[in-house]
């Protein structure tokens, strides 16, 4: 409970609220687009570098490798049951896109959870950053495979889509590439490298996270409002209520699953929380970009709204402290 209130009362979260409020009262507050993009690159750079340095200072062991394997495995399995659940109510394309979304991860949720742990003074290991980077792509590929198998692919799709492009898109997506690269550099340069970039990478981290979450609050709230306005048009195919319910239940269900796995893996408090948060989160950067190319028939008004406007705030505000409390209680 104190963890819960502590999280809600931390500056980053409060700035997320402030962004939401800006949209509610129709303020014209806005972070310029290129600066918001730069803030997100900064977060990926900082968390990647920190993770790499942490990795350099620990030794590779079996537990670590098992955790990475479990992470990739979950990222490839989650889309499967998600797909079949969603297909009952939605089109094949939408179901596949939602499947990919929830199999993949949200870097910002991870980063916020890491900041949360730092504020609480709970330790976590650098290899979780690697887990995050590895979990981005498999879900995309599984999602597309599912669609290819169960949907009837139209003519138009055929000549636009190539597996080579898609693999490239999902493996070398800008954000995946930057995390992996920064992690590698952090790992190579170790603590000597860290001493050179520490003021940027560590000291400014929480402050810049505040500004970034302010922007995310604005963007998420706008998208939620747009989806409500578009209510009538959607009414036929994708009822808003279904979207909200699914976008709240899926992270919870996946978190439970991850909790069990984390227990089996014997992860410590901090690592377990990050693992659970990864599995519970849904992508809203890498996956939508890949889906627009490979599955344009899927409606971003559905999958992106779910992950960005519902699951993301839910995880941020309620998920992280809840999962933390459960970990404390169970593990």
């Amino acid at each position: 409970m104190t963890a819960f209130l502590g999280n809600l009362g931390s500056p980053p979260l409060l700035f997320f609220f402030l962004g939401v409020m800006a949209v509610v009262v129709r303020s014209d507050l806005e972070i310029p687009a290129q600066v918001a993009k730069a803030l997100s690159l900064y977060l990926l750079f900082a968390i990647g570098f920190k993770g790499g340095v942490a990795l350099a200072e620990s030794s590779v062991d079996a537990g670590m490798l098992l955790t990475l394997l479990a992470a990739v495995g979950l990222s490839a399995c989650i889309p499967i049951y998600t797909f079949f659940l969603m297909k009952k109510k939605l089109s094949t394309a939408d179901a596949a896109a939602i499947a990919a979304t929830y199999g993949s991860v949200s870097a910002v949720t991870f980063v916020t959870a890491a900041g949360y742990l730092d504020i609480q003074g709970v330790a976590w290991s650098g290899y979780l950053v690697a887990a995050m980077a590895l979990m981005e792509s498999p879900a995309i590929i599984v999602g597309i495979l599912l669609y290819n198998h169960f949907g009837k692919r139209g003519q138009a799709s055929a000549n636009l889509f190539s597996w080579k492009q898609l693999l490239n898109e999902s493996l070398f997506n800008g954000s995946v590439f930057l995390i992996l690269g920064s992690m590698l550099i952090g790992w190579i340069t170790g603590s000597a490298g860290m001493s050179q970039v520490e003021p940027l990478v560590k000291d400014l981290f929480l402050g810049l996270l505040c500004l970034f979450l302010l922007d995310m609050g604005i963007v998420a709230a706008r998208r939620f409002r747009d989806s409500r306005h578009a209510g009538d048009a959607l009414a036929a195919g994708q009822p808003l209520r279904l979207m909200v319910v699914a976008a709240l239940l899926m992270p919870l269900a996946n978190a439970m699953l991850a909790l069990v796995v984390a227990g089996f893996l014997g992860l410590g408090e901090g690592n377990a929380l990050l693992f659970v948060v990864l599995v519970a989160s849904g992508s809203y950067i890498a996956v939508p970009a890949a889906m627009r190319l490979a599955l344009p028939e899927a409606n971003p008004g559905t999958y992106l709204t779910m992950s960005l406007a519902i699951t993301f705030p839910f995880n941020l505000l309620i998920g992280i402290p809840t999962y933390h409390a459960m970990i404390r209680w169970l593990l």
Partner: protein
Amino acid sequence: MKPCKRIEIVIEAPLAHRLTERLRQLGAPGFTLVPDVRGAGDRGERRADELSGDSSNCLILIACDDQATVDSILEAVRPLLSRSGGICLVSDAQWLRH
């Protein structure tokens, strides 16, 4: 001055690269691309505010004085637009020779 067609395409940002690649293959004489453009259409509002670039559009302008090339460009654009949305306008213009 020589007469030409002025093709104007609005397409979502993730597809722009694919389209310009195609233009080159088709021998388009050139293009001009305005990035980070907002808009609204059949598929709702696109605010150009998301990190995935997913809600940004591009405005692409092509001047072309060869009708066959114009036709092949339009042929290449059509499936992109019908899958992913956007618009394509064609009008007449005079191209200043220099």
